[in-house]
Each structure stands twice: as C-alpha cells, then as structure tokens.
C-alpha cells in the first residue's frame, strides 16, 4: 500500500535522516527544512520515516 506523509515545518530542523531513507518522498531544502515531494511511498517506508525522525516531525496522512 502506498501512502503520503507530511512534515511539520515548525518541528523539522533539517537533520536529513528522512532524505537518506527515501529521496523519493523527501527532499531537504537549502532552507534547512525537509520538504515532501508529494510522491506516495510504501507504508513500510512511511512508517520507517516517521519512526526514524529524531524530532518526530513526520506523520502519515492517508493511511486507510
């Protein structure tokens, strides 16, 4: 199953772990904030992204 993620722009400090896990889903900007690309990813990848973010800034939006 493919899902979308969101990144809380207030919480993200641009660590970049997410970009390492999935460049398809996330891109770190020169503004020091991770941005979602809008591409849906496998639920396992999405869960890994959520769990791996040291600041807990990532969540899944459309798990169903």
């Amino acid at each position, binding site marked *: 199953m493919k899902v979308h993620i969101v990144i809380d722009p*207030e*919480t993200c*400090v*641009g*660590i*970049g*772990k997410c*970009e*390492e896990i999935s*460049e398809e889903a996330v891109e*770190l*900007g*020169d*503004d*020091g*904030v991770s941005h979602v690309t809008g591409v849906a990813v496998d639920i396992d990848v999405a869960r890994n992204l959520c769990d791996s973010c*040291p*600041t*807990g800034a990532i969540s899944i939006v459309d798990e169903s």
Partner: protein
Amino acid sequence: MTETLDLSAIELKDPDVYLHGVPHASFQLLREHDPVHWHPETAPDPGFWAITKHADVVAISKDAQRFSSAERFIYYEEIPADAMEMRRSMIETDPPEHTRLRRIVSPLFTPKTVDAYRAHTRAVADRLLDNALAKGEFDWVHDICEMLPIRVFVDVFGAPEADADYLAKLANMLVAVDDPDLAPPPEMYERARARGFEPHHLPFSSPAALDLFDYARDLCEARRLDPQDDLITRLVSAEWEGERLTDSELVNFCQLLVFAGNETTRNSLATGMHQFILQPEQLDLLAADRSLMKGAVEEILRWATPIYTFRRTATEDVELRGKQIKQGDKLMMYYISANYDEEVFEEPQRFDVTRDASAQVVFGGGGPHYCLGAFLARMQVETLFTAVLDRGLRFELAGPTARLRSNFGNGFKTMPVRAAQA
C-alpha cells in the same frame, strides 16, 4: 534482604570519579534502585536530578518545552546571569530561536551532504596512518584522533587546513579546563582578564574561547568580503526577517562547532581503538564481514559515549517515576548511563560489533538538539576503521594509556600503540 542501600554516597560530578574509568557501578545502582536520583552539590550550586534510564533521557530530550536548554544552559556549571548572553550558542537555545539558528547550518550536515566528504576523509586518514606507522610506536590519540576530525571539520567550516592544529589545540583547552595536563596556561587567563573577561564570561569558563572568538571574527570578516561555498559564508550571510546574526551569535556559533566538531569524534575514535586493542577478535569479525561495519559504528559510539551528560532545566513542575520535579530544577541526563541501560542493551558491558546498538543516545535522545554532526561523526568512525581494516592492521598497546580528567568529556589523552600481526 534487610540490607539497606545507601545511594547518597554516589558521586557523579567530581571529575576525579572519571579519571580511571566510567563509574558504571554507580550508574547501574541508580538505574536499578533510583533512576531519578537527587544528587546534592556543594553550595551555592543547587543540586540536581540524575537521570540514568534510557527511556527518561529520550523523553526529556524530546520535550524541549518542559525541559529547557536556554534557561540555565546545559552543563553542571551555574552560569552567572551577566555572562549568559556572552556565552550563549545554538545549543543553549530552545525552539523557535533554536530552529532559526539550526536551519542555517543543517544543509551542510545531512547524510547526503556528508557523503561528499568521505573521499577527503579517507585521504586524510591514509596520510595520518602512513605518517604514524613510519614512526613505529606512536600515540593513537595525538597522531590520529586529534588530527583527523579537525581536518575534516575545517573543510566543512571553511578554515584553511594550515589552521587545523591551532583550532584543535584551542578545542582541547575548552573541554580540558579540569585537567591540569591540558588546561589553558595561566598567561591565557591573564590575557583574558586584561581584556575585561573573567573565565565565567566565556564558554566552558575557558580563556581559550576568547582566542576562538578572535579567530572566528577574522574568518567571518574575510568571508563577508569574499564569500565561498562553506559554513562560515552561510553564517555571515544568513538572514532572518531582514536580520543577520549578531557578532555574539556568530562567534559563539563558531566556538560551538569547533568544539563539537572535534572533541567528541576524536574521543570516539580513541575509545573505539582501545576496545579493538583489548578485543582484537572484534576487529577480526569486521575484517571477515564488512557488512557489519555500519552496525559496528553504532556499537563503537555507544561504547565510547564521548559526552557523559547534558543538563536541562524544568520549566514547570513535572512528576517523573514518582519524583516531584519542581519548576527551575536542574536535571542531568546521563547518556553514559542510558547507553548501558540493561533494559535496552542486553549485557551492556559486552562490546559486540554484531549487536544492534542503533538505539544509542550518543547524539542525544532525539528532539530539536539531535547532534548536528551525527552523520559526519559516523562517517569518520566508519572511514578510519575501514582504512585500518583495508591495511590488515592490528594494534597493541606500547605503554600505559591516560584518561581525560573531566566530568563531561569521556576520552583518552594518550594511547601509545604499535602495529601488531593480524
């Protein structure tokens, strides 16, 4: 069992306690019997809560709202009110101020960016190993650990490589104020006083910070005139709603990065090698299966835990494991204890490169202050030990080692070694 356990004698702040090794027995007792432990201090210092469980270190790290880094800074030391603004760097801020500062430098430290420094790091590691091995016996701390991270760092930072040794020396004198062998000489204190700075006005209460500030100021000025693709240029050109970083923000930022980019990694590289000397079969495991390397890096870091502890200050009353923590109370989060918590790491006193040590809190327990240099540090540990393996090297001690006298930095100041047969 009717025997009562007296935990009041446990001492965690005295630097002498760490001189001959980590006081693991004390931490183990606290984890088991009093994981949120009131530890007195000598007046006028207020005393603190010693936080020793992994889960609590993580929870406190992630809750920057209730556990502040900005309010009373992050060390044992009580910072006088008149020195706070002079000494404050990013690490002593809370969101949203922290977020603003962090995002200026974040793009230079992501896993993807750090990858670009890998080849340079390997070249430096090879050069250092060549030079050291040519001597026969050498000091792993001085000839390798002290040299490598600072040379990688100056490349990111934008300082000339010729200045690396000078910056490493200053970084040492920041952290080693409690070690008579490494502390700044008296004339440095006198020079600072002549300029109107008492030690407590300066980061780590070390006059070496003043020299670092001077160095940073000159480098910032050079990049304002001639921008480059480096960290210093990012700092001097960063804008937030039309405002640039102030002089104090700039020089403290540089001081923080020079310290953090050097001392922590060098101590991890030293402790890692020490373990491989004591247990060469662990290096043999890596040699036989290089796919273990990523996991081994996590275990080396867990074992090394180069920073024992950072402080937080409660911004409101909080109950933790039945203890009533009052607003304004000081909490010391012991990463060194969390990384040996039996509840998270099976047989924590066993160094084992095959274990999953990814839950280690060497880079903090998460939250906004998660170590900026986490991936740069991992890359250097991986690169150096890969270089050692590629050469089929094993080492043995060629004399007694000496540990740093510090209640903050976990490291060696000397480790004489010679190459041994693999």
